[in-house]
């Protein structure tokens, strides 16, 4: 009898979660003040003899850009965007180069560059010549065995934040048994640790919203990790398939508020897939190709605005029978004021806003693009800025 009652309670809870999940996948109605637009300001072309590859360009103080030279594998080139010139190259330590694939950088200053790689349990600090100053692994932070928790930085759209005054690093640290676990929704996914002592100061931020309510259902891996943006004592957590942004006090770990930060064009996200589908990588990829999803939340400090791009849904296949590459995908960028109130939305057509191809500037966005440029330019980019919308 007890088993039947217990089973009934579990079944009711699941039902309740599914209903709540369906609600969360639908965009709430928000007051939308359409007062700002994003327009092309200028093209930036820097001439170079080398071919570059980067999953996501890294820019420091709107001026310095780091790009990775493909042919030489371990050479990073530094460019000045303002003078449109090549500054210098540096070679990444073989200690890392021979072990990991590069993902992205977090530049504290030009002599303290954090290199994030395919190694999902470590964070590396390089000097300005590419030499390895130190590596930190989740093991150093007292998390054992290794791989119990992983950093999501093998995905280049994710990054850390370092506060040099307090010596604290703010990072996402995700349970390695992700994405299916019975108690996954209770596990904190954010960590604040001291770089010198390796002591974790705070763990906070278990999954919220869609990611909490989805239970054992699954999204493709790269759409399952939280995006984290730290500005002073606040950390903004957002998810690729959740319309809300969750704002935490990163000194206490308390969820202060959640704000709907959604597009007026994307009303519904698809339901996650049953957990057994995770074995079918093609089914997961097909979901990934078709689904709309949000990119990271960006902050533009000079104009005190946030932006959040959302890629629109698209067909699975092109006319040729090939899978859709997204080269013509439509993307909305919503503009939010400092309180995360939506105050504008700009639509980019024809794949101009490539997936993870935009880098936030203090007063706009830099879109890396190959469209309309010839191959003589290493850094073909388009600079966009915010302007009042004229009715």
């Amino acid at each position, binding site marked *: 009898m007890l088993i039947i009652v217990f089973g009934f309670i579990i079944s009711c809870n699941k039902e309740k979660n599914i209903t709540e999940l369906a609600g969360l996948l639908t965009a709430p109605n928000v007051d939308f003040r359409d007062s700002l637009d994003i327009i092309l300001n200028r093209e930036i072309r820097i001439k170079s003899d080398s071919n570059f590859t980067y999953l996501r360009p890294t820019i420091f103080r709107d001026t310095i850009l780091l790009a990775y030279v493909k042919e030489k*594998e371990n050479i990073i080139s530094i460019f000045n965007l303002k003078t449109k010139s090549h500054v210098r190259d540096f070679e990444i330590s073989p200690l890392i180069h021979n072990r990991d694939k590069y993902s992205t950088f977090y530049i504290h200053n030009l002599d303290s560059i954090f290199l994030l790689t395919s190694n999902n349990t470590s964070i590396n600090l390089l000097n300005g010549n590419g030499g390895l100053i130190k590596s930190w692994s989740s093991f150093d932070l007292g998390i054992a065995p290794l791989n119990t928790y992983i950093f999501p930085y093998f995905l280049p759209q994710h990054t850390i934040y370092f506060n040099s005054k307090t010596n604290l690093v703010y990072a996402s640290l995700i349970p390695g048994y992700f994405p299916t676990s019975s108690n996954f929704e209770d596990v904190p996914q954010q960590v604040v640790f001291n770089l010198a002592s390796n002591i974790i100061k705070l763990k906070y931020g278990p999954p919220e919203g869609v990611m909490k309510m989805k239970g054992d259902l699954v999204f493709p891996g790269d759409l399952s990790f939280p995006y984290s943006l730290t500005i002073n004592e606040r950390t903004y957590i957002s998810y690729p398939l959740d319309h809300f942004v969750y704002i935490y006090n990163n000194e206490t770990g308390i969820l202060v508020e959640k704000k709907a930060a959604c597009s007026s064009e994307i009303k519904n996200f698809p339901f996650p897939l049953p957990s057994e589908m995770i074995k079918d*990588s093609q089914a997961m990829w*097909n979901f990934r190709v078709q689904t709309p999803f949000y990119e990271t939340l960006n902050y533009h400090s000079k104009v005190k605005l946030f932006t959040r791009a959302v890629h629109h849904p698209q067909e699975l*296949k092109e006319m040729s*029978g090939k899978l859709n590459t997204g080269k013509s995908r439509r993307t909305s960028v919503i503009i939010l004021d400092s309180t995360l109130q939506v105050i504008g939305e700009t639509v980019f057509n024809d794949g101009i806003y490539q997936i993870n191809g935009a880098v936030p500037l203090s007063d706009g966005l830099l879109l890396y693009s190959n469209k309309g440029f010839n191959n003589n330019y290493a850094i073909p980019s388009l600079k966009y800025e915010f302007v009042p919308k004229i009715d």
Partner: protein
Amino acid sequence: MNLCLRLIKSSLFLLIATILICCDNSKSNCKYYDGFKLYLSQVYDLDISAKDERIFYVLPLEGCDECLKINLNLLLERNFYSSKVTIILTGRNFNDIIKGQIEEIKRKYPILEDGKNLIHQFETGFGKPLLVHVKNGDCLFATSIADSEIESVKEYILDNS
């Protein structure tokens, strides 16, 4: 009349169930075979129906290093060989440690190279290493090779060689 209707309904249900079971090729995991054929024809100009019998073994060089090593070790085992196996290498190898093994694979088996990862443009079921067994244009068996299944893949290849 009611009984008659019920009988018709039951027969119809049985018929539909039988058709579904017969048409369900997921048992042999060949559900992405059309995409795989398209990949072979568009990238390698390979008309699979014209070939007798082949076991395609797709190896992602840019995937996880450990998974790659497990598959390379199997393919290079001294007593393991099948003349039906063709290897498709996707992506580029950045790992010096396995460079030698890849060269050895190239000497031991017929190779198709996909350095630009064009396979991702097709619906082939590729994510992990992939095995696709084809005969006279039909897919006999296909499986995504999880690390834990490497022994059963070995047995499958040896049993069908």
